[in-house]
């Protein structure tokens, strides 16, 4: 069997309390003994309500935070090993890129192409190669025509795509999107989401998409629900969203389509298959049911 790309083994994390003292106090754990394997090239959505620990999980993967307990393996290599040098840490950060929520707070330079070049520049890539990577990355996210613009002239969605280009230019194997669509308007959200899906399908980049938007989670291959620092559901979007009862107990909303079908089923319409997620198919199914009702 192929070994997993990312593997978490009994990973726990808690923040240290801010107060200075002889003994470092640990605050209640944010993550509790997480075990998780992520396959190369997969598209995983991580769901959870605020404070569930989903962003913390993301920050552990590229060593912005260090697990209190447990081990994390990347390509079979233990990245939580004590003998990791500074250079090793930067190798991990190059392989696992991260895009954050607020597009404004991750752009460094005053010109779009300069910003995209920032990552490769830090990695010490040859100037001519940086040029090629920047052009290719901007093309991938569809922002080539804006390369001489300044970030403040762009819309939220466009800024976020520039931020993504900045990560792509480092040639990562995996990109973690930490609620990267949360601050955008519906149009920007769609632009960014389409870009993310394309990166996964066409470039084969492993995607971890942290979100609390159910419709977005539907586009993933696998959905993991985190609640109170533990994995409470893990499976394909269909499997996870059909578990309506459990989703509600962890404080998550179910997609409207699923909710409608679920309610109908619990009202006694047994023929309803509430695991159907495609809106058009649902509409057809409902039309069928109404027709058969008329016939009765």
């Amino acid at each position, binding site marked *: 069997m192929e070994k997993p790309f990312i593997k978490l083994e009994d990973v726990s994390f808690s923040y240290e309390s801010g107060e200075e003292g002889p003994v470092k106090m640990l605050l209640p754990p944010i993550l509790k003994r997480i075990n998780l394997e992520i396959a190369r090239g997969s598209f995983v959505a991580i769901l959870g309500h605020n404070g569930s620990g989903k962003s913390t999980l993301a*920050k552990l993967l*590229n060593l*912005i935070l260090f697990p209190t307990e447990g081990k994390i393996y990347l390509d079979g290599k233990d990245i939580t090993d004590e003998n990791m040098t*500074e250079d090793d840490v*930067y190798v991990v*950060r*190059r392989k696992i*890129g*991260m895009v*954050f929520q*607020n597009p*404004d*707070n*991750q*752009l*460094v*330079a*005053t*010109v779009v*192409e*300069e910003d995209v*070049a*920032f*990552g*490769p*520049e*830090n*990695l*010490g*890539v*040859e*100037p001519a190669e*940086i*040029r090629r990577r*920047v052009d290719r990355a901007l093309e991938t996210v569809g922002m080539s025509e804006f390369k001489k613009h*300044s*970030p*403040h002239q762009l819309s939220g969605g466009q800024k976020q795509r520039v931020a993504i280009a*900045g*990560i792509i230019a*480092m040639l990562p194997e995996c990109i973690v999107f930490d609620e990267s669509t949360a601050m955008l308007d519906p149009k920007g959200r769609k632009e960014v989401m389409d870009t993310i899906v394309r990166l996964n399908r066409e470039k084969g980049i492993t995607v971890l998409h942290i979100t609390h938007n159910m419709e977005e989670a539907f586009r993933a291959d696998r959905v993991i629900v985190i609640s109170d620092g533990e994995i409470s559901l893990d499976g394909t979007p269909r499997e996870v969203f059909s578990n309506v009862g459990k989703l509600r107990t962890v404080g998550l909303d179910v997609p409207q389509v699923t909710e409608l079908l679920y309610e109908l089923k619990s009202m006694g319409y047994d023929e309803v298959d509430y695991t159907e997620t495609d809106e058009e198919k649902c509409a057809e199914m409902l039309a069928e049911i109404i027709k058969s009702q008329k016939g009765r």
Partner: protein
Amino acid sequence: MLKDITLGQFFPGKSILHKADPRMKIILTLLYIVAVFMSSSIVSYIVTVAFTVILAVISRISVRVILKGLKPLLFIMLFTAFFNIFWTKGESEPLFAYGIIKIYKEGIIFAVLMIVRVACVLTGSSVILTYTTSPIALTDGLERLLSPLKKIKLPVHEFSMMMTIALRFIPTLIEETDKIMNAQKARGADFSSGGLIKRTKALLPVLIPLFASSFRRAGELATAMECRCYRGDKGRTRMTQLKYKPVDLLLLLIMVAYGAGVVLSNIYLGNLIVL
């Protein structure tokens, strides 16, 4: 409305001065300022004024912009000129005397030359540097020009990174100030009436949220930069490489010729018209 502000005083264009290397332009500006202050004879002043006019013409910056740039310093120029007129003592008879106030020919000449000198330095350095160089190119040029100082542990790279980030965030913060002010106005805040103290006090509820959010931004930006493998200038390369082009050499030669012109006219033509 606040979005349209121009950063610095940069006017994009395609003149030789726009195309020149920022490092060269910084060197040229320094040479130019030294040469202007070395001018001490009427002939060298004429050379300086002529040269400054030529620079302004080739930069294709409009006269209106240049005059506007001089305006803020008009008061200081007139002020110094005024003192020079009354305080300079000449050897010949005063042109005008009333009690203790005596005005000499030298005083007037000196005051006029002072104004000419300041106006030249201001116009020349802005057309060589600030009007024709984008702030980002300027920062970049300065970093590379000063990079030998890294050897004596001067944080040249860090300084230029700070400048870049400051430039990057100026529009963002202006936008945010605008938003906060509108939010406060909607809650009944009044920023436009009352005396100075009252108005300053009214700004406090704007500044505090602005500070708080800047700190949050700084934290997030630092994390994002770490994620993009930033670790100072250790092992860092740059996409845009600055290369001196023939244009730069040409400009340098012109500048040296001008400097030589000033020095020579000081030595050989200084006595033509004695000051």
